[in-house]
């Protein structure tokens, strides 16, 4: 018998926001009958803000409760805010899920991303691009890498609980073990910079092949590279940078600190920030300074 929290029971027995939005602005669909759970998410988006969210779910109590929690979490949020909702937040909202049921919360996050891709007119790919590792549940290597990275997974069992990969025939267990070892090794790389500080590696950097970026991915990547690489570098020379906005391939930043001279500012903007972003994110990125 699963030990569900009272909140899970409540959201299963009295799910919020069940149903269809006939004139939805975005629809996201993940899972399948074969997988044993599936979620169809409908969003009404007004001026970049999610004004209504509804769902239909095929699945167990925790899948239904996770869907209900997801809709509650994202209603009223802007699309950008909603995209920051992680599977962990969905689980936390429910007071936690049994470990074996964490994949239900991952399904919620994936449905949201699928819906927003749909709204942005991008390819509604149900699975993240990559090579299919688990044939039974159609899980790709990138989905597994991401789950390992975002949830700090440590074992094959963790991967099965969070992604379902390897949960059926077991033929991919060797591949999953290898993927786990590889990802953990990449995450633990302590590249020591000249100042002696280890630099954390973001998930997007450890993924080997980079697919064509969606707006969402580009934005996330820019933020990660800025945070993990550029800022520490500037801070070492007494400067700093804040991200102000991202519009397509245009990145707007605010510079702080000792970069007073025009030449020095240009050097920081193009020589450091733009160059790093082009190297790590996409090679057509332009960086502009926004004055205070």
């Amino acid at each position, binding site marked *: 018998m*699963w030990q569900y929290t009272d909140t899970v029971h409540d959201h*299963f*027995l009295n*799910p919020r926001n*069940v149903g269809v939005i006939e004139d939805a602005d975005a629809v996201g*669909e993940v899972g399948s*009958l*074969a997988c*044993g*759970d*599936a*979620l*169809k998410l409908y969003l009404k988006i007004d001026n970049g803000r999610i004004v209504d969210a509804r769902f*239909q*779910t*095929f*699945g*167990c*109590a*925790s*899948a*239904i409760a996770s869907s209900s929690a997801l809709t509650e979490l994202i209603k009223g949020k802007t699309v950008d805010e909603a995209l920051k909702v992680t599977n962990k937040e969905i689980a936390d909202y429910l007071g936690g899920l049994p470990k*074996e*049921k964490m994949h239900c919360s991952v399904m919620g996050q994936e449905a949201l991303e699928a819906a927003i891709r749909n709204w942005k007119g991008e390819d509604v790919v149900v699975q993240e691009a990559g090579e299919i590792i688990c044939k*039974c*549940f159609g899980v790709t290597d990138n989905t597994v890498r991401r789950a390992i990275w975002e949830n700090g997974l440590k074992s094959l069992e963790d991967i*099965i609980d969070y992604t*379902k990969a390897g*949960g*059926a025939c077991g033929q991919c267990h060797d591949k999953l073990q290898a993927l786990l070892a590889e990802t953990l090794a990449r995450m633990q790389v302590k590249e020591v910079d000249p100042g002696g500080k280890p630099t954390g590696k973001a998930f997007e950097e450890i993924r080997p092949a980079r697919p064509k970026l969606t707006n969402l991915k580009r934005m996330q990547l820019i933020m990660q590279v800025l945070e993990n690489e550029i800022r520490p570098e500037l801070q070492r020379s007494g400067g700093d940078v804040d991200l102000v906005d991202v519009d397509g391939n245009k990145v707007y930043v605010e510079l702080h600190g000792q970069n007073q001279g025009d030449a020095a500012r240009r050097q920081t903007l193009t020589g450091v920030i733009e160059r790093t972003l082009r190297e790590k994110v996409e090679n057509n990125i332009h960086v502009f300074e926004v004055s205070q």
Partner: protein
Amino acid sequence: MKYIYLDNNATTQVAPEVLEAMLPYLTEEYGNPSSMYALAGKSERAVARAREQVAELLGAEPDEIIFTSCGTESDNTAFYSALETQPGREHLITTRVEHAAVLNSARNYEQKGLPVTWLGVDEFGRLNLDEVEQALSADTALLSVMYANNETGTIFPVPQIAALAAERGVQMLTDAVQAVGKVPINLKELPVTYLAMSGHKLHAPKGVGVLYVRRGTRFCPFVKGGHQERGRRAGTENVPYIVGLGKACELAMNRFHEEDRVAGLRDRLEKGILELVPEAVVNGDVENRLPGTTNISFKHIEGEAILLLLDRVGIMASSGSACTSGSLEPSHVLRAMGVPYTYAHGSIRLSLSRYNTEDDVDYVLRELPPIIKRLRGISPFS
């Protein structure tokens, strides 16, 4: 709230008569049967009496009955002993729809390098006798086929299969945990070598089982230690539970006629559900089935959700869905039968006992259909 227990293939309530028979051995009659005084003698006689009661239900001799801790231990012991005592034979044969106790015993030996033949089943969960016959060889150490399937209730033609094995001198185990007490079994006419049974499936408590070993079979104990059970199963006898199991066998013997009533209840329940709920199908071989079991799949919904909503109205059942098992795949039995995923995830098993009533059936027929309708209302597929 009303409570309707329909999960008797998982476990059963202890019969009041069984509890009554056990109580003295949990209180004043606490002697160790191996000791040398009157108190011990009483325990020893109680165990002997229980052995007779079990033997009578099975059509066996008392010295063919070994008390164990559970059905799983009995299954494990049969595999172990068959391999230990027949050094030239390494081949094992079993079905894809066995209980985990047999499934994982066979898998364990397979991983150690022993050849295992896995017999498949058809869409109704039936074995092909020709396949069984073809699999038997001079190298076969053990053929293991369950008497009745725990999930669907399908009864296998164990008498015919045992005859095939006996003709070729191959030892056979039947895991009869679900069948004993529900269908007549007479080991005088059923030429199996081993039979496994469990107390808690027939109104005795959990923690006691039996392994039947046919006279003349070479035997090697799985649990090693003292001389108990004539050196075939070490460990101080669980006297009160053995007494309870004996009593439960006696009750089953006297109440076989009630199984027809149980089958009648099951049939009315099943027919009612199929009439009231669209897109529902019965899994298994309805012609050859345990009297109290029905396994029904509801398209487009998931079993765990059904169970939790049933529990809210006091109805206890089980499911072959992935989510209830802790694994991610639906029941291995339904998959072996080729039940489509659209149905397999939404399967529930209702298993009745002689304690169920017509009122129980009426109650389920009233409460179940709206639950199915409610979940289908949430599902994106219906």
